[in-house]
């Protein structure tokens, strides 16, 4: 989680960051990042393997 936050911090605005996670790690990424301003997409990539793509939401965008 912390490593992912460091990667996101370094990524240019609007650039998605993707990574592979296990099932037990998926929930720890999906919920907290959705709550804190990221679009989170999760794709199954095998048994207990998921591809997670996170993109920082545009804070200036209207509803």
């Amino acid at each position, binding site marked *: *989680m912390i490593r992912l936050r*460091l990667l996101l*911090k370094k990524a240019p605005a609007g650039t998605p960051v993707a990574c592979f996670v*296990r099932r*037990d790690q998926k929930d720890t990424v999906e919920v907290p990042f959705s709550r804190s301003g990221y679009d989170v997409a999760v794709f199954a990539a095998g048994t207990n393997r998921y591809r997670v793509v996170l993109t920082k939401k545009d804070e200036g965008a209207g509803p």
Partner: protein
Amino acid sequence: MNPHFFLLSGPVTQERLAWIGDCLKFYFIKLNPENFLHHTKTEDGVFTFLLTGDALYSLHDPATVRTWENILSLPSVRIICDRQELALRGISVEGLKRKLPDQVIDHNRLGINGQQSFWNDVAKIARQHEQPIPSTVGYLQMDSPYMNRSSLLAVKCLTAAVEAHASVEFYAYLDGIHCGHIDQAPLEFENVGRGLEALAEKAAKRGLQCQMPACTRCAAARGYSTWDETEGEVVSACTIRPYRIRNLNEMIERFGRNHIILGENVASLQVKKEGQASSFSLVETDRAPPVTILVTRTPYGTELAFGAISFAVACAGQGILTRVIFIEDGVYCLTGSHTKNGDTWFFNVQDVIDAVAGSADLQFYAYLPSLERRGLVKNPKMNAVLDIGSTGFGQILFSLSKGHLAGHQRVIFF
């Protein structure tokens, strides 16, 4: 009823006692002046300090004894000492007891086995808080066994809790993982692994729950984990049977409940408000006890500072209001500009703070008196870490923002 208590097992320095005293003064002078003016007496005290292990030396050192006397001059403050640990260390508290006989207690409660134990006092206090029956008592263990006496105290504590008819939860974090290694065979010390197994058996015999979640990251780092692809779980061939290696978030999910969680150095501070319902469900995030994490150690000498931040991020990720306060030697996390060589995969503590600051439910603070005492200033780039003095610290400990309905706040020293 004991609204507030501190359980202290590690060394208590003059600096630590000074800030504790300042926070108590804030509580009495700013928040409860009527208690301060009229010295309201309650049978059990408003603040209870439960002292065991090396914390007891603070009752012997003349410098800290003076500070204790100042703290005990506040209304309704008492100390309960672990008589067995006092005897082990050859420490006498008779001088302090002569001055303050009602406030310094060195005889302990009888258990159902007819033996006096400090942990019976702790279990009684931990059970007294509002919670469904049977209650639950948790213990966060961060130290390894044998090198650290705290692991043995954890076993004693949870055994007393089971005897007081509480379900128990042992959370193994950082080096606390080692407490659950199989085949421990100490010749000169009590066997901690066997103690944990006996605890699980005792709880089962009494129809009580006993859980021992161990952090996956910490377990993997220490060589405990293998990944079971079919079950989708981390398993280990070298842990005792009650241990379950799980993602930190599964452990933190337990912190979303309102039972008392103890540890080597912790506090539980009552924040119940007037008119609040007397019973509530076990899991509701607006009622999850807030967590205040005190980072008291230098950043790189041990894993404690990083472990504290990682723990805080996980708490906040579960929607638990989490405040991290860099205090005592923990302020070294914030001073100077920390740099790592080149493109190393690893990172420094300041990078971590910078990356996670701004997360929902997560706040960082620097305790200014600790910086001043060391002649240090905070790195100006660490602007996500807010400066606080003793008043701000008191507000964090004793005043909850509107909308939070938790009955108590957890304070954990790292």
